[in-house]
Structure formats: C-alpha cells, structure tokens
C-alpha cells in the first residue's frame, strides 16, 4: 500500500521536476488529494520522499561531491573495522561458550561432594577439566593478543564464564587445603600471563563470592552425613573471608551486591554450627579458641 503510494508520488514528482517552470497544475492538485487520503503515517513518508526527490534534483548543482566521497570513505573504513571487531568478538564468544560447557562438566563432577563421595576422588575427576580450561584460556589470550590494549573492550564477553571458573577452582582448592585460592594462584592454574592476558581482580573477587554461595549447602550435607566438625571449619573460613572482604571499599556495583549476599551464607553456616553445637555433637578440639576469634571479628 505504502509502496504503491510512493511510486505514484515519485512519478508525479518527476513530472513536476521536468517541467519545473510550467508544470501541470492538475497533477499537482491530484497529488495533494492523493497525499491527503492515506492514513497519517504513510502521508508523512510520502511527503518526505517527494521532498527528497525534488530537492536532490534541484540542488544537484550545489552539492559538492568530493566531500560526499570523503565522508563515504571514512564510513566505509569504520564499517570494515567494526566488522573485523565483530568477527573477533564472535570468535571470543565461541571460546567463552566452550569454557562455559567445560565449567559445567567440572561443576557436575564437583556436585558429588554433596553426596558425600570421598573428596580426593571427586577432585581427581574435576581436575581433569583444568587442562582443558587452560587450553581454552590460552586460545582466548591468543585471540585478544591480535588487538593489543583492547582486553577490556571485549572483557564482557568472557567475564561471567571466568568468574564461574574462579569460583570452582577456589572451591576445589578449599576442599583440598582448607585455604583460600589467591588471585595469582588462579592465574597460575589457568596458565595466564598477567602482562598480556591476566585475570581481572574484580572478576577474581566475584568468583570468590560465588564460591561462598556453595558453602552452606556443603555444610548442611556434611552434617547430615555425620561430619560434625565441618561447620566449625567452614564457619572459621567464611568468617575470615567475610572479614577480609570488609577491607575493600566497594562501589555500588555487582561485586558489592555479591559481597552483601555473603553474609547470608555466613548466617546459614552459623545456624548449622549452632544446631550441631547445641546438641553436643561438635568435637571439642580447638573449639574455645575458634569461638574467641569468631567473636572478635
């Protein structure tokens, strides 16, 4: 409908333009009635097009074509560069998706700790994925290396996946050693080279917050399985972690939100610890000392 209106309008305008000094006023009249009848939306479009046509022909002499060519040249270049950037991004996304699915495999094998499988066995399974991750991160680094200094232009494309990786690695490390996996250790595990493709500190911290979310569930299931010393250990670790996080001056961003959530993990673990202790199930080993440190912080 609109197309045909436009076509008639075009024909009409060309007529007008050709006989610029002596046009057929009847055509003009019919043009006016024609543009008046369709719904308002298409009217504006038609008017605009007519206007375009009559203008470009009448102004053809005044148009300085070299500048138009220069403008076009610049935008062609922009288009090329943005297209290159887009295809780079696609490649990054492809690797990030692979990282995501590897992380998922790792997570699913780690979930067995909730079914009280022996930790060494669970860890061994999960650890097989670390080499895969290492490889994926090295190909990611290779892609980003093509654009020196633009790490943070594409950072958003692998951020969430990396945070997930950090959280799993930290959880595994904690299961193994009971201590926190620090920033440089994550880089080491993933084979990252901080000078060209490092791990962003905020991503690391967010990953650690994700790990903290995993702990209450672990504690609950361990207690159910009869490990009554677990809540004490986890509570100690989480209290330290929370106290350490409080050293950071955070902005109102995602990390802040995740950190604010950490206190609920802490509270849940405290509740479990309380339940175990009140029933006299907790072992007495080193307990009074731990209590003291908890109260101090």
């Amino acid at each position, binding site marked *: 409908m609109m197309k045909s209106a436009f076509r008639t309008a075009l024909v009409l305008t060309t007529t007008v333009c050709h006989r610029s000094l*002596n*046009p057929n*006023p*009847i055509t*003009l*009249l019919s043009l006016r009635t024609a543009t008046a009848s369709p719904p308002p939306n298409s009217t*504006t479009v038609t008017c*605009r097009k007519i*206007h375009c046509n009559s*203008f470009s022909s009448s102004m053809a002499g005044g148009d300085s074509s070299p*500048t*138009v060519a*220069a*403008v*076009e040249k*610049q*935008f062609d270049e*922009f*288009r090329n*560069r*943005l*297209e290159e*950037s*887009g295809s780079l991004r696609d490649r990054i996304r492809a690797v990030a998706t692979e990282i995501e699915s590897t992380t998922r495999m790792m997570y699913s094998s780690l979930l067995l700790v909730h079914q009280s499988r022996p930790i060494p066995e669970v860890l061994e399974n999960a650890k097989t994925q670390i080499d895969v991750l290492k490889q994926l991160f090295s190909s990611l680094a290779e892609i980003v290396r093509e654009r020196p*200094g*633009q*790490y*943070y*232009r594409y950072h958003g494309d692998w951020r969430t996946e990396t945070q997930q990786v950090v959280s799993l690695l930290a959880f595994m490390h904690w299961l193994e050693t009971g*201590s*926190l996996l*620090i*920033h*440089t250790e994550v*880089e*080491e595990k993933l084979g990252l080279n*901080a000078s060209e493709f490092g*791990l962003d*500190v905020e991503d*690391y911290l967010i990953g650690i917050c994700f790990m903290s979310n995993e702990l209450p569930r672990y504690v609950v299931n361990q207690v159910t399985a009869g490990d009554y010393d677990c809540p004490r250990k986890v509570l100690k670790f989480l209290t*330290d*972690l929370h*106290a*350490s996080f*409080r*050293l*950071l*001056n*955070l*902005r109102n961003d995602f990390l802040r939100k995740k950190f604010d959530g950490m*206190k609920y993990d*802490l509270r849940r673990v*405290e509740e479990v*610890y*309380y339940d175990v*202790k*009140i029933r006299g199930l907790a072992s007495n080993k080193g307990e009074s000392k731990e209590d003291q440190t*908890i*109260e101090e*912080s």
Partner: protein
Amino acid sequence: MAERADAGPNEAGSVVVATTSVTILASNRQMLYSSASLHRHFYLMAPKPQLIRRLADSTMQGTTKKSRLIATASASPSSSMKDYFSKYAEYLNQFNDKRERVVKASRDITINSKKVIFQVHRISKNNKDEVLERAEKDLLAVRDQHIARLVNELQGTDFWKLRRAYSPGVQEYVEAATLCKFCTSGTLLNLEEINSMLLPLSDASLEPLQINILDYILGLADLTGELMRLAIGRISDGELEYAERICRFVREIYRELTLVAPKMDDTSDMKQKMDTMLQSVMKIENACYSVHFPCEIYLLKETTIEDHKTLLHEHVVCISNGKVMYP
C-alpha cells in the same frame, strides 16, 4: 530460648551485619573526602597512575613475590588472607579514585562542550564569523584545559577499561567539534582530524589518547539533533540555502550511519540514537519542505493564473495569512 541467647553464634551474626553497615558508612565518607580533596591531589600527585600500574603488577604478576609473602604470613592463615585482601583493596582504591577523576574530567568536558554548542546556536544572518570565531576559541579551550586533564588522568592506560567513565564527555566534544567544523566549512570533521588535534596533549612517552570509532559515531549521532535546531533557526531567519545545506549533510550522515549502526559494540544505545536521528532528519526535511513548497507554487501562480483559479485562490489565502505552512 534462653539457651539460644547465650549460644553465641547468632549474636556474632548480628554483629557482622552491624559492622557491615559501619564499613559502608566509612567508605561513603572516604568517597566524600576523596572528591573534596580532589583538586589538591590532582596537581600534587601526577605520577600516581604509574603507582597504580606498579601496584597492579605486583598484585597480578607477583608469582615470585608470592612465595615470600606466604612464608612471612604462614603463621596465621587468616592474617595472610587479610594481607592479600589489603592488596586487592589498595588496587581497587587506586583504580576507583582514578575512575572518579576521569568521570569528573569527562563531566567538565561535557559542560564546556555544551557551551560551545550554545555559542554556535547564537549564530544569525549577520554575525556568523564573529560567533564562530568565538566558538572555535572556546572549543580550543575545552581541548587544552579539560581534555588535557582527561589525558593526564588516563596516563596512556585503561582506555578501554575506563571508556564508560569518559565516553559521555568525549561524545559531547565530538559533537561540538563537528558542529563547529560544519558551520565554518560545511564539511564533516573526520575522526582522524580530531585525533590528530589531540596528539599534542599526550606525553610523547605514553600511548596518546585517541577517540575510538564508537564514541565518534555516537557523537555524530547526537550532532544531528543540534543541526536540526540550527536548521530551524536558519529557516526562521530566512536563510533557506543554509538550512538546505544542513538538510543534505544530515541526510548523508544518517544514510552512512544506518550501515554502521548494527555493527557497533553496544547496539541498543545506538539503535535509540538512530531513531532520534531519523526524527531530526525528518524535522529538518519537513521544515525545508514547508517553506519550499509555497514558493514554488507562488512561481506557478504567474504562469497558470488564467487557468486554475481554484488552486490560486487557496494559495493566496495561505500566503496572506502570513503562514509558511502548507494548508
């Protein structure tokens, strides 16, 4: 219930919550303080960004230092955790301070570029050279005072990491610079040209600040809004030729941007700008159209006066009302 009260852990929980809010207050206060003392810091602490880089290196790269750190802190695991976190805290503090300073510089660029744009809008039929000369002078001042500050804050690093902090200012500057250029020469100021003007601001040893394609394009998209105002102003001043020149220019930019827009990094922002842009283009076109048409028909009047009295009658009514709009 009584047992619960002296059991301890629950109290510890509430203590945790309370202290969290205290930390928040403290950090707020610190932010206030740091922005208040910003000016003082700014000139005294020029080498600060290097410090940040060094610090980032030490937190990120320190695999060799790590063993030493662990050795010294191994006495108590919780204190070692705090050691690491105070490193992260230091890094975050430095970086957030830098971001704040960049945001502030960006805001000043925006305000002063806006002033340049307003200066251009003061144009009228007879004062063009004078007004534009002033605008160009102001634009140079924006570059030398405020963009130079941004360059100084960035110190050749974090161009992409802090892009969101300085992008609004840079866009506004692009808008002001391209507007001035169009008014003086009728052409589009290229990204290359703007960037070459920014080169002298940077220290030769550092990577210079160069406006990226995205900010340039976003700035151009805003330019059409200003050109629309300018065109309407010119029309009401009777400078139709000028308005038509704007119209052609804007139309060309819109046409070029339609091809580029879907390839931008953050398309949603650009999509919205494209819509506004089309609105502006159409406003200019309609304004040109409404003054263009009666004139043409007015010419017709003389050649066809005998034959088409009805048509003529309508036009005479239109013109005698003093309206430029097509009835």
